[in-house]
């Protein structure tokens, strides 16, 4: 098992996902399938641990932070990822966590630690988060962390349950971090 990339305290960690995590992560997707179908475009195409393994292997490791796992007491409960646009200095974060672990601030802690990590690298000047307008839990995370609402991308998202949906764009600049209490 890889060393934690980010230690969130209280047994919570963010680590690079490894191929051996695929069965465990697939089980989390499967249990949360109906809920995720309203948000995530990839859910219906994820029908076996093999599909998760392919995602993990594409995400790579080291420089590429696209396939990270959120772990609680060593158990993978969701994912978080960052896609850097190095040329422009922008980095987009995405995340999801199983229903059992929602509403306890776990994803907010993971985002906060990931943002710290990104702003400590030379090529990240801003962080972007996009979320569906009716996804109150997801939107609460950038709002809590001091992001500003910058726009609304019309019908830029798609999910198997519900089809096309808008995305609210949130941005946070390096100079705005950390947010004042």
């Amino acid at each position: 098992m890889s060393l934690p990339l980010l230690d969130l305290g209280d047994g919570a960690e963010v680590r690079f996902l490894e191929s051996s995590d695929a069965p465990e992560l697939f089980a989390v997707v499967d249990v949360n399938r109906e809920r995720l179908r309203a948000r995530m475009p990839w859910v219906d195409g994820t029908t076996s641990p093999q599909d998760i393994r392919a995602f993990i292997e594409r995400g790579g490791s080291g420089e590429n932070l696209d396939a990270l796992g959120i772990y609680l007491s060593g158990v993978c409960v969701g994912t978080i990822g960052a896609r850097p646009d190095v040329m422009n200095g922008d980095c987009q974060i995405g995340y999801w966590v199983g229903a059992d672990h929602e509403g306890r601030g776990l994803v907010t802690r993971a985002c906060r630690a990931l943002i710290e990590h990104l702003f400590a690298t030379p090529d990240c000047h801003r962080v972007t988060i996009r979320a569906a307008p009716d996804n109150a839990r997801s939107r609460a995370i950038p709002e809590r962390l001091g992001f500003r609402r910058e726009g609304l991308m019309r019908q830029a998202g798609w999910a198997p349950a519900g089809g096309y949906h808008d995305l609210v764009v949130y941005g946070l600049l390096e100079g705005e971090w950390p947010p004042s209490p």
Partner: protein
Amino acid sequence: MAAIAVSDPLLDLGNELEVRVLQPDDAEELFERIVGERERLRRWMPWADTTRSIDDARSFIEHTRATEDLDGLGIFVEGALVGGIGLLFEGSGIDGELGCWVVSSHEGRGVAARACGGLIELAFGQLSLHRISVLVAADNLRSVAFVERLGFTREGLVREGTRADTGFQDLVLYGLLEQEWTPAP
């Protein structure tokens, strides 16, 4: 390389105007165009300053050919490279970000509009995208007007979303939906 059957040229737009997937052999010509336009491009395009040699141009072409995006396309008039155009696919699978530039000698002649129109047709047709996004530097008034003429709707302002010669710049976010697109007559 994109997961579609890429024809050569990718788009034949008539009157000797073509859009082609750039080949490693195009690196020298691409580099010459960038050098010739560097002062103008570097105001808006971060890559104008980082492309310092033919090898840099070749690395860009090879990099784009290894991805699933259609990012490394060239605009050719009578066989000569006059600009670049590209489409980056978003994670949603239904949205693509369009970017385009042409050399000053071919500005104002409809070359960019026809190339963008052709790529938008391809995106909504063969590629089955639902929407196209464009990000334009807020003070690049010529490009802002160009994008609005194509029928895009302003959707937001991405603060300090790009880095250019004068520092970080705000980007205006534009979107165009499949059902909003009217092809040129």
